[in-house]
């Protein structure tokens, strides 16, 4: 182990095995501590939420039309489903275009840049944009539809990125084999690329589902309203109760709401998001098992 020569990469090599072991233990401890710092807040939030929320939870609380969460749960679920229904096809189509069809050039670079930037736009800005476009200009009014459209825009970059990543994972050899047999690009995408990237695409949709369920700002002006009479939306043009917004109002503005109700709402929201995620993840796992390479 001589002195490094000019131009040779300098490797960091411990001077002795004992020192190497000590460094290893130190590094392991530091990394574990870092992970703990990340995990602890999450754990504590969940514990507190369960502890306090369980107290307020009861069947009547969930289902009673007056104070119950039923409408909010239903509203959130509808919102999430409609958002996914909008965002998924658009996002997948966009990803397919970028991954399979686009030739590199200034236009494509611009599109990618736009997508990256969109991902960084604050959610309240989306809310305002949705207000202007969907609620007012297009006249949807404060509605499920406007909310879903706005939310779909919010999660679109997520879906596109994850889908593109999934498409890229499909080995080039499969596409080449398809082309070499005389398939058109679309035939190749439809028969080979898309079916084999579904699990990855699902990931994007799962993530967007999680976002959609939990975001407040986009639906603030576009879809949600607060009510204690617990109405369930009858059409897409109806406004909805949504759990995040419900929680926000309960915690800040509405007078006389018992603490336990607030915590119970938070618990239900978290459980809902978790439930949606789990459902989507299990669907993805099933897809993965069915089709592997």
């Amino acid at each position: 182990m001589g002195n490094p020569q000019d131009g040779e990469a300098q490797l960091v090599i411990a001077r002795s095995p004992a020192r190497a072991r000590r460094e290893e233990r130190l590094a392991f401890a530091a990394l574990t501590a870092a992970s703990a710092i990340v995990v602890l807040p999450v754990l504590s939030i969940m514990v507190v939420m369960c502890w306090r929320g369980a107290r307020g939870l009861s069947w009547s609380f969930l289902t009673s039309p007056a104070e119950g969460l039923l409408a909010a749960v239903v509203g959130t679920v509808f919102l999430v489903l409609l958002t996914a229904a909008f965002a998924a096809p658009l996002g997948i189509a966009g990803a397919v275009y970028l991954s399979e069809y686009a030739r590199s050039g200034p236009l494509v670079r611009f599109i990618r840049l736009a997508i990256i930037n969109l991902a960084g736009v604050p959610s309240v800005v989306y809310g305002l944009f949705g207000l202007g476009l969907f609620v007012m200009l297009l006249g949807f009014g404060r509605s499920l539809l406007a909310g879903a459209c706005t939310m779909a825009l919010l999660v679109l970059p997520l879906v596109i990125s994850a889908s593109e990543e999934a498409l890229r994972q499909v080995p080039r050899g499969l596409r080449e084999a398809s082309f070499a047999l005389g398939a058109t690009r679309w035939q190749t995408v439809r028969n080979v690329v898309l079916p084999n990237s579904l699990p990855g695409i699902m990931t994007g949709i799962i993530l967007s589902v999680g976002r959609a369920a939990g975001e407040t700002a986009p639906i603030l002006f576009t879809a949600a309203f607060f009510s204690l009479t617990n109405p369930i939306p009858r059409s897409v043009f109806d406004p909805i109760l949504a759990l995040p917004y419900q929680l926000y109002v309960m915690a800040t503005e509405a007078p006389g709401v018992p603490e336990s109700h607030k915590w119970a709402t938070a618990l239900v929201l978290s459980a809902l998001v978790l439930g949606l995620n789990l459902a989507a993840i299990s669907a993805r796992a099933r897809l993965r098992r069915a089709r592997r390479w």
Partner: protein
Amino acid sequence: MTEEGARNIITPEGEIKLATRDLNLYYDGFQALKAVTVSIAARRITALIGPSGCGKSSFLRCFNRMNDLIEGARLEGEVLLDGRSVYDSGVDVAQLRKRVGMVFQTPNPFPMSVYDNVAYGPRLHGVAGRAELDEVVERSLRAAALWEEVKDKLRQSALDLSGGQQQRLCIARVLAVEPEVLLMDEPCSALDPTATFRIEELMLELVQHYTIVIVTHNMYQASRVSHYAGFFLLGELVEYGETVQIFETPRDRRTDDYVRGRFG
């Protein structure tokens, strides 16, 4: 090309299936092929040998226009199938690729059943009837010397097969669209010697009906199976002739050094 160079490229006797005239290929300014002029005999095995990165695969991909898929690829000169240019404006690329099939270096079966893999091509081109597909699948698997091994496993995933079987499956998949030409890009590089010999055996059977062009790093394989051989070096076709001449009495010193393994 110098006169001496022209002397080292012979024209095979009999029917010519594929040809190029002064073919130049550029990838974003880098010249991958230099003025390649050659004729490929029908229903013969023609091997293309030479060191890595010297243009053999790029050359092969000109015949089924797979280079179209590469951004920045630009082609000058002529590429002819049965005397007609494959880059004519009227040419349907999908049909071209049906006539000129390709087998790749790493076996790339689709993550589907064996049956669906072989049926993929015919389905693309409109074959739908169950009985018809069954017949095509069996015929192609037999032609690829794979039928006996997979006839009870048609519905199983193609990825469960061994490497050699997968490559024969890829060959069956190509045969299913009834091509006239088989382009094989180092088909045995990823296979063990036994599987390699089986594929070589298969090639010698198939050549009765198909024109086969094979790119190979393994010049011993080229000497074993091919009728004609071409030596590529740095994008140039240095020498081309009957295999026995290339390996016994090469005309060009560079060919001589290469086949003797003296390439420094």
